[in-house]
């Protein structure tokens, strides 16, 4: 089930971004015009103005996606009818809605920002950007296969299991053990400096196992490549768990604070969006229906 879901998400991302890219390409000339000149580009204006056939349609689709973002918190609260699927997949879809929706709404605005509705737009963008940080925080909390956060005990057991594997099945030498023990690095008391170290570690995370593998190969040249890769992978997993275990309390606190920021702006965005929709309907704006 994992691969079909990833394929579906890939298709959704491709569909969302290619749709946005297509209309952005088509309307690039129109978006580049000054506001006072846009109505003069009659045919483009009819299509791509916020109330135009394409512009309005993108707004409706993007707005619907923004509303769909609230399915994820509803799922977290296990509201009736939403008690299926893993949280991680709900989050994946939530992120797709949270990226694609604002992109489409950006096209809906025709890059014309003003009035109260711009508060909704910028709030939405704030929510989206904060979402990226939230997703990073989310990744800093060790989770099980279903997306549920692991307890400290579960983390400790997992760390111990990885240590035993390294010492036993992987039969690491003392020289290798010294490298793997140092891999997690030193973390002081949670604070700004520590957060900086974590951020720097995470930024270099994609190459760290490779660097470790090179170090292992240097002290144990005869060790097969697959064995080096396994040692590097497990060492990295263990280091991540150790570091996250070390920062768990701090991350949870920041994550709580993040929710405090993320949610109100989402509410602001949606409330003003409804206000915008209501005003548009009141002022007689219609799409194809």
């Amino acid at each position, binding site marked *: 089930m994992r691969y079909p879901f990833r394929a579906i998400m890939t298709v959704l991302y491709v569909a969302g971004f290619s749709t946005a890219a297509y209309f952005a390409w088509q309307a690039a000339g129109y978006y580049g015009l000054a506001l*006072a000149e846009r109505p003069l580009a009659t045919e483009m*204006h009819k299509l791509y103005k916020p109330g135009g056939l394409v512009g309005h349609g993108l707004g409706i689709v993007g707005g619907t996606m923004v509303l769909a973002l609230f399915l994820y918190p509803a799922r977290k609260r296990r509201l009736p009818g939403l008690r299926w699927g893993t949280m991680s997949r709900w989050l994946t879809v939530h992120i797709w809605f949270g990226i694609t929706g604002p992109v489409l709404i950006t096209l809906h605005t025709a890059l*014309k920002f*003003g*009035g109260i509705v711009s508060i909704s737009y910028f709030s939405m963008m704030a929510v989206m950007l904060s979402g990226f940080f939230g997703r990073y925080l989310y990744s800093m909390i060790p989770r099980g296969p279903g997306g549920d956060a692991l307890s400290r005990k579960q983390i400790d057991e997992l760390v111990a299991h990885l240590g035993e594997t390294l010492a036993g099945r992987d039969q690491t030498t003392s020289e290798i053990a010294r490298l793997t023990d140092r891999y997690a690095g030193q973390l002081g008391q949670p604070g700004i400096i520590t957060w900086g170290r974590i951020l720097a570690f995470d930024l270099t995370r994609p190459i760290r196992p490779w660097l470790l593998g090179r170090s292992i190969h240097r002290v144990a040249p005869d060790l097969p490549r697959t064995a080096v890769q396994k040692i590097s992978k497990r060492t990295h997993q263990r280091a991540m768990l150790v570091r996250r275990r070390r920062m768990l309390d701090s991350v949870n606190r920041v994550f709580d604070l993040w929710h*405090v920021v993320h949610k109100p702006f989402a*509410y602001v965005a949606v409330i003003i969006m409804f206000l915008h929709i209501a005003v548009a309907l009141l*002022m*007689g*704006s219609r799409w194809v229906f």
Partner: protein
Amino acid sequence: MNRHPARAQLRGIRSLTLALATWWIVVLPAQVVHGQISPGDLAQPHAGLEGITNCTKCHELGRGPSPGKCLSCHANVKQRIDQQRGFHHTAMQGDDAQCGDCHADHAGRDFALIRWPGGEAAFDHTRAGFDLQGRHARLQCRDCHRAELIHDNLRSAQRDIDLDRTYLGLPRDCLGCHQDEHRQQLSINCTECHGAESWKPTTGFDHDRTAFRLTGTHEPVQCAGCHPALAVSQAEGAGHTSYAQYIGLRYENCSSCHKDPHRERFGGNCRSCHDTGGWKRITTAEVDHARTDFPLLGRHAHVPCKDCHTSGSYLQPVAFALCTDCHRDQHRGQFALRTDGGMCESCHSVQGFKPATFGMAEHAQTKFALVAAHSAQSCLACHEPTLSDDLGPYRRYTFEDRRCVACHDDTHHAQFASDPVKVCTDCHGGDSWRVRDFDHDRRTTYPLEGAHQKVACQACHKPTVTDGDSFVTYRAVGRRCESCHEGTTPPRLVKTKG
């Protein structure tokens, strides 16, 4: 770990965020609430309609912008629509016609408020009730739609209208935009005479419809040739120096425009001799030549003036005492010795050179009266063009030799030239060449006796051929018998050839 400080910190952050969100959602909108639920700033002319309380001044709730709302302010446009005139009347045909189709707003303060379908240059001006014809079609919109040309009615009806932006209020009459070059002398409907392509020529003007119809040489004359330039008043300012006078011109008499070269010697009515075909073209039929010393009689009445007035000036005297003052003497002075000096009118009249009035009676007064067969001959039978000079051949009318042989051939080959009888008429009659009652006994030396009296003339006078010319022998007939008779009994006449 003491969690109470953390919870307190969390509560503080939540309170701060809520305050921020509250400001975000309430205070900030309150600051920009003035018109900021709109999708964009209204154009400058509508700037006064900004604000959340003004939306329904243009929009009908749930239905959008309403033409009725627009027209409630734009009363001048509504008036034109109600009167079924102007562009907006045609543009608002149909149930779904919206002002916003062309006048979409909320596109910013700088928006011109007019969206031209297909561009400003593609506007079909006929829909505005004024077809841009001729040179008008090549003008820019603002060449005509200028504030100073806008009708006062629009200014008074809508005082806040921007005269530099509006396309309304332009008069449809020519003088609404163009200066009256004729200074109220003529109709204010310029198109009666002028076309839309250019001021000149006046394609619609027909001078024949005026009290002075242009004919003859008047037609190609430039207008300014008859219509003088009048000075404009200083009030009109620079750029206007003069205008043509079209009314108040005197035209009853030719002398109103033309000088009388005859100095009134022929009266003031030029038309009695001239017409508009040209000064030198005299309408002869109407010239009373009888008032001159040379009334035009007979064929003279049909002769073009210039045939006699060869100088081109009718004031130049023309000799007329003698016919030969104008006409050439066809007879080259042959009659100069006549008692009348050869006056032409003795034989000819003004009815024509031919026929001459010289008849039989007149000929009888000459030295050669025409009698018998001569009276039946054409003049030309005797008066042949046997003479000639530098001007060509001409007919002889005077004859020194009036003998028959002067005209007739001597068919007798001079057999009688030495005779005492020398006149043809001694033998031949005047009415015919035939010889009658010739007395052979008296007039010849051979009297006819006996049987000779019964013999036909030709029996003795036989044709003789000499040098190929045949003639009858009268003189050389032998007197001896055997000259004619053979020596037989009874005697027979000798047969001769010929």
